[in-house]
């Protein structure tokens, strides 16, 4: 399969059985309330693990990728974002009513329900049905990639922003670290109708968190090759956005504000249209769209 990335092939096939990343030994005796829970250790490790000297660097934009079935395009992007050198916190969703995968003919898709079916289940079922067909059309490879990334497809409309996602960390979902609060800064959809669905659904959800979120669309055709190209482009966009956001965090106080010049003076939010315009010039074949919505 074209979209297959050897980097994720960790040799295991059942991610839901993966143990959480081994917690390093507790570094210090914290306050009395933190000494008991295992999750605390994990979180501590996350916050301090990489480079304790520059804590500001551990801050990153949190991403969410969305396509129709949370299988091909959003998962390719999920893979790219979570395995990039910067390793972004990322979650992913589908906006369709059901997970639809190609079947033996166009009228016989394989249909699964969101949130309750794991990629592993789908993989095993399709391998049982017709291993040749599903290997040749790339579905098995795709599902294999997906089951190494997270447990199963999730539906955007069922997502409750702000609901803690600690369980995803314990399940070993890639990119789950940093998304335990259940919120994101940037949503990237892979198709216009998904963008429409996401913007519409956020309005329906009532904007109760009062938290701004940038919603992008990067139009990607639903096939493995395009997903690969799109995944690259999305990573490019994410890097540009993150760079701008990091800059803003470094510039603080009135003094810092005054010292910058030009684009550097723009806050992250302000720079978004500019970043997208620049990005679009580099990727003219992936029509983009953006808005600022609310979680």
């Amino acid at each position, binding site marked *: 399969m074209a979209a297959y990335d050897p980097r994720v092939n960790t040799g295991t096939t059942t991610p839901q059985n993966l143990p959480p990343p081994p917690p390093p030994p507790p570094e210090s005796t914290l306050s009395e309330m933190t000494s008991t829970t295992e999750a605390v250790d994990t979180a501590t490790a996350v916050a301090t693990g990489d480079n304790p*000297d520059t804590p500001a660097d551990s801050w990153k934009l949190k991403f969410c990728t969305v396509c129709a079935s949370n299988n091909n395009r959003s998962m390719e992007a999920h893979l790219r974002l979570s395995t990039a050198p910067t390793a972004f916190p990322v979650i992913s969703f589908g906006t369709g009513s059901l997970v639809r995968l190609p079947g033996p003919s166009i009228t016989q898709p394989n249909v699964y329900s969101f949130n309750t079916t794991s990629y592993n289940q789908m993989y095993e079922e399709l391998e049982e049905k017709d291993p040749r067909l599903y290997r040749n059309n790339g579905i098995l490879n795709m599902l294999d990639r997906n089951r190494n990334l997270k447990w199963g497809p999730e539906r955007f409309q069922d997502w409750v922003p*702000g609901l803690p996602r*600690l369980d995803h960390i314990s399940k070993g979902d890639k990119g789950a670290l940093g998304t335990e609060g259940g919120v994101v800064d940037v949503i990237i959809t892979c198709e216009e109708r998904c963008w429409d669905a996401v913007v519409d659904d956020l309005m329906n959800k009532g*904007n109760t*968190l009062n*938290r*701004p979120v940038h919603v992008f669309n990067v139009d990607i055709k639903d096939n493995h090759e395009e997903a690969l190209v799109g995944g690259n482009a999305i990573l490019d966009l994410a890097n540009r956005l993150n760079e701008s956001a990091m800059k803003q965090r470094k510039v603080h*106080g009135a003094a810092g504000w005054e010292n910058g010049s030009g684009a550097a003076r723009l806050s992250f*939010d302000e720079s978004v249209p500019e970043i997208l315009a620049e990005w679009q010039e580099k990727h003219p074949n992936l029509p983009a769209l953006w808005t600022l919505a609310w979680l």
Partner: protein
Amino acid sequence: MAQSTDHVVDQVAQLNAARSLVLGDAALYPQIVNGILPIVGANARLELRRWGADFLAETFASPMLATVQKQELAPTVLQSIQETLALPETDTAVLSSLVQTSASLYPLIFRHIVNHPEDSKTWETMNAVKQEILRKMDSFPCPAKICSVKFLQRVVQVQTPGLIADPRRPDQNETSLAVVPRNHALLAIPLLEAEASGLLDRLLGVFQEETSDPLVVNATLNCLAPLIRTRQSIANKIIQTILDFFPAKHVRPPFTPTVRVGVKSMERTARALLFNVMKKYNKSPATIRGLDQRLTNPFRNPSNPLMGKMQAYIERLMQSRLEVTEDASRKRGLPVEPTDGLDNAKRARLDAMTPPLLKIPPLPPGPTSYDQLFTLTQDIGLSSFDVKQLPPDLVVKIAVPLLAQVNPSMLTQAVDAIRNRYETITKEQNLKRQQLYQAATAAAADEDDDYEPDYEPLDVGADASEEAIALAAEDAELEPDLVSLGPFVLPQPPPLTEEEAGDVGRSAVSRVFGMIDAVETTPSPAQSKTQQQLSFARLAGSTFDRDAWVILLTRLATRAPAGLEGGDKSKGELATGKRQPTISDSIRETLYRYILEDFRARLKIGITWLNEEWYNDRVRMKAANSDRGDEDEEPTVALFYDTWVLRLLDGFLPYLDSRDIKVLVRFLSEIPEVTIAITQRVASLAKDPERVNLTVQALMYLIMFRPPAREMCLNTLEDVYQTYEESRPAAGKVLARWRPQALPAPTETAPAAPQAEVQAPPTAST
């Protein structure tokens, strides 16, 4: 410094650990929030302030933490926020998070104050925070400004009356002005509502700025949906403002890629919002409408004028988007918005408020035609255009979108205009008619009303009283003569002679035969299949195909005149002798000829017909038997079956070919009764050496499968065997099987012909 950095790192790690705890168990929030407030307060280091502000924003947004607990925490946290804001806080991230937190806190504090009117201190703090944000928001860095937009929206939402879902349980209701008691010590409803109204204008002001900031516009558009949905009193105003907003007009050239991104995003977001609003109102069930007016949003009514406007706005957006973003390079820049106060947005709104008046031309003098009555346009070209020239599908294509865009007020005006015209005309005509009538009765000279001969009611004579006239006038009022011609009575037709009636009957019959011919080719295999499946269950003539017509005809021939002709005969016995050819006879004759025209294909009709005849004969015999009573007269019943079965057989026998065995066997097996006469006719075929086998096989079939006729057929076969040499090889085999005694001494065993038997018809017909 390194020491202190390490210390901060440790602290942040501890704080993160604490956060993980509450994410896992929301019950720990109060403990931890109170624990961290001193650490991350106004004077803490930037990292800690950032962390604290983020955490507070997350806490009060969390769906896991119950509203009651949030309410309890709110006053303490509010104090801390006020202190941080008053520093003043300069870090963008902290500021944004604090404004976010304030937006979440506002409804909580408001609800707290509703329940605790004595806590004026908290309300003062909240007001201070609110004023601080509102005062500074325009000078805030962009991210904080965006969050302030949301804060503004929250304040408007809280300070505008909302829905009361259940007045008996105030706790369950959404926080809004509607839950504030009238006599509240701190919250004065009119003041709060006025403030909200001002803030709403400020919120919507972004749509009227000369140059729009896409960030703020999008942020505003995306948070308006809950306001439109839950705040009926301001929904119209918000939608109207959006309808007057055209992103392409609010940007200044040059159209850099960045500007284009901004315009496109504003257009798409506006479109998304309107779609969201329209979908909500379309989806909501109409049944709610009658239940509770307060629950009913005005937009739920699909005929709401705003719905059409929203649709039109979306279409216009799509168009302008094409122009600006795609063709911008090829086009001149749009003129800059006029700054003389005659803002387009405002003008457009005024236009929209007063729908255009329809100009109704007066009717031309003299009598009015329907055409004139319904013509409102004064365009001669338009009114003389013949729509019938257009093909219907084109008319549909034009009419449907037109109807969808008809302005309701214009339509109402037009309908009213036509109604007025109609009423005027009706009144005038009634008046005129009454005058004429009175003149006529006064003159009393002649009753012929030359002026309006059609109208004159028949029952009003020359001596009609005043009452009758009044009644007539009333009638006229009800039925204006534009649409009525008065009662019309067809003259009684002259009585038909019997011959004429017969002719008419025959012509009717010939038309029915025409029907048979017309549908002859149509029955498809599938149809005939279903018919066969219906078999006993079907009703005769219920399918309107050829079979149905055939059955109709055969019944017409056999049953319809049965009683009538029978009646004739019972009265006069002469009738049998000089009986006129009746309709039924002519039908029979026609049927006979019709079948013979193509007897192979129409044999089925013949069989159906003969079955009907046979059945009819039985019924009449039975009726005659029961009618006979005491009289000694022999019942005389003309039996049609015997006559017609022989005629039909004689008709087609000469044409039978040696290969027509199936036709013959079918006929013989399906007719209801086989008589000696019939078997003799069949035997006569043996005269022709070529058709000997036809005879033998037909008889053999009857012998094998028609036991009642077996004896009769065997006798005939024996005859044939003896008479025709050619038949011996075949007939001999059959006789050997069924009547071996006939073979050794064939000449001696010819018995006398037995009587005709009565057999049950093999096919049922209902």
